[in-house]
């Protein structure tokens, strides 16, 4: 091979740089990182079971938005027949008081951005100024 002395180290360097994120995380021990959203200590039950919420919270909130804004509904009847007010602030954020400790944990990990808080306000947001 012509210029093998240059090409092979070059290739090794290239592969090293390309895979940098992987081995950097492996070395710093981040591969085993699991996001831990902090659950409210004094509340036992969410609107729906945990497994349902974990997968479908976005659809649930989207449905709530649609009902409240466009259809004039305010009450949500959960699958256990309990009734809840459909409100991000008054229902969700009433238990999950700090967005940074709850929502952001998974959203940041997954690289998800949403624009809820451009308009809606959670109580802790005001404290910071």
């Amino acid at each position, binding site marked *: 091979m012509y210029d093998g002395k240059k090409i092979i180290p070059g290739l090794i360097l290239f592969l090293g740089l390309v895979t940098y994120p992987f081995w950097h995380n492996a070395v710093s021990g981040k591969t085993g990182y699991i996001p831990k959203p902090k659950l409210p200590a004094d509340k036992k039950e969410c609107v729906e079971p945990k497994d349902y919420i974990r997968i479908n919270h976005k659809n649930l909130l989207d449905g709530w938005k649609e009902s409240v804004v466009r*259809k004039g*509904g*305010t009450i*949500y*009847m*959960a699958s256990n027949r309990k009734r809840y007010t459909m409100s991000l602030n008054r229902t969700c954020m009433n238990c999950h008081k700090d967005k940074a400790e709850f929502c952001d944990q998974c959203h940041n990990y997954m690289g998800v951005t949403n624009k809820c808080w451009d*308009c*809606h306000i959670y109580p802790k947001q*005001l404290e910071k100024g």
Partner: protein
Amino acid sequence: MEFDRRGFLKIAGLTVLGLAAKPGWELFSKVEPQELVPSPETLAKKRWAMSVDLKKCWSVKGCRDCIDACHRIHNVPDLGTLKEEIKWVWTAPYENVFPEHELEYSEEDYRHQPVPLLCNHCDDPPCVRYCPTRATWKREDGIVMMDFHRCIGCRYCMAGCPYGSRSFNWRDPRPFIKKVNLEFPTRTKGVVEKCNFCEERLSRDLLPACVEACKEKALAFGDLKDPESKVRKTLQSRNVFQRQPELGTKPKVYYVL
């Protein structure tokens, strides 16, 4: 025991039936979560409207109670400039609001008196026709609603509204709100906003904030379909005007003098 074809089919059938019992029971006994939404018919039983008694309104000079109450609870920012002003309730001189009223030689000079203005919640709202995303629409109870989630900020509705009831957020309004009301969201840069007849208060059986704030009881709010409602009573008593009725939008904010 002889195990024939017939016997095998019987047992196989029973087994399948037995296995299907539990999932079948679960499937049919499950309660689907649902949103309890008032039916269009219940909403359509009402037609919200407002009347403004101008004489009562003018009895206190320079009063801004209705404007302040509305803007406080709806997180309406005060940007300080006329160009970027955001308003849900505001005032304009009588002669500008009702230019068709010739008042030159009338006994009392109304011409410079401030008339409180807000979204007229028209029966045939031009803004709704213009909105390309259906971010604004007319509810069955007559309220012309806005869905801020869906507004793309094209401002067609502002061009369409003959009453100037709509304002555009040219910049992030948050820093310009003196005291944020947690019960109501703020808006974001690039959406249009206007009076919503306090739809969020009506759903909790409260009167609109401006009506509640007016100490002179100049504002009356109620259901036009109910002959006993306050609005209907006010409309029967005196001279009634609407803003630019010739446009055919059928405004539902009435002015009595």
